[in-house]
């Protein structure tokens, strides 16, 4: 083999480059993977729908709430287990999940999505959510 040292060096460098992400992940602080979200500060355990459903479909639910509230003038949402909720982002959702930075934002940052809810909706002050 001509230029054996050079070729071997190049192969080593390429392999090291390819393996770098895996090595880096191993060495890292274990921050890889979905972020841990903070539970509601008030200690509420039950969301409107099941945890699994909310994790995957909270956007759909919010869109449905938005349309029925704004366009059909409906106020109440009946969950699949029969409990009723007032449809409202700043009242019902934020009423429990008042820790937006540790809940909404943390996952949205991780997933690199930028919902524009708060361009218009005003984030309630503490104690405002009861309105």
């Amino acid at each position, binding site marked *: 083999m001509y230029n054996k040292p050079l070729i071997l060096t190049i192969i080593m460098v390429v392999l090291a480059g390819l393996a770098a992400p895996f090595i880096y992940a191993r060495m890292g602080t274990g921050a890889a993977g979905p972020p841990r979200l903070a539970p509601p500060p008030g200690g509420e355990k039950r969301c409107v729908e099941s945890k699994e459903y909310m994790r995957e479909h909270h956007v759909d639910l919010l869109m449905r709430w938005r349309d029925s509230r704004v366009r059909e003038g409906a106020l109440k949402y009946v969950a699949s287990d029969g409990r009723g909720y007032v449809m409202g982002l700043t009242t019902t959702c934020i009423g429990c999940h008042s820790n937006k930075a540790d809940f909404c934002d943390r996952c949205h940052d991780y997933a690199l999505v930028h919902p524009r809810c708060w361009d218009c909706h*005003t984030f309630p002050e503490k104690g405002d959510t009861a309105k």
Partner: protein
Amino acid sequence: MTRREFLQLLALSGFGLVAPAGMLKGEGTGKKTPKKWAMVVDIFKCAKKEGCTECIEACHRIHNVPNIPDAGRQITWIWTSPFDALFPEQPAYVEALRGRQIMALCNHCENPPCVAVCPTKATFKRDDGIVMMDYHRCIGCRYCMAACPYGARSFNWQDPRPFIHAIDKGYPTRTKGVVEKCNFCDERLARGLVPACVDACKGTCLAFGDLNDEQSAVRRLLGSRPAMQRKPELGTRPKVFYLLA
């Protein structure tokens, strides 16, 4: 079975098919007719209060309407205009009103041209007659502004938040690139309150109520005194009425 019995049975079964539909229709008689919200402005009382901005301030405060100094970018839900500008087809109808400032707002037309032109159905008419904006759907094309013959709509050329003196947390703001206008205080109506402007007008120039209710304030006023609408010749059928006497 005789022929006579057969025909009787046939008629009876035919009735059985038709009757349920008729009964369902009959059910509707017990149902309330939808409300049809309207406003009445006592034009003489309003004109007398030169420089009064009670209704405007109350409305703009609770709806987070920004106060933008640049006239070309202003946002208004309620505003005042000279009588002649509001009623150009009523030349000197009442000499006393010439040039006097009169309040104006979205007319919540029965036949709203803004709704007809909106390409995303962001503007729509509710069953109770309120012409509503769904700001989520507004793409800022401003067709509605071109279609509205009353100038009731404003466009957000910039983020309005820096121009809102104190944001009312009970109501959303708007964002850059959407059109906005008066909503007849649908959020207050839902709670059984009258619109904020009617509440704020200490001169009691404004009345609000249901046109379908004979006992309502607006029906009584319109039944007893002459009134006019803005640009009635356009066929938009405004639901803001101006009392003339």
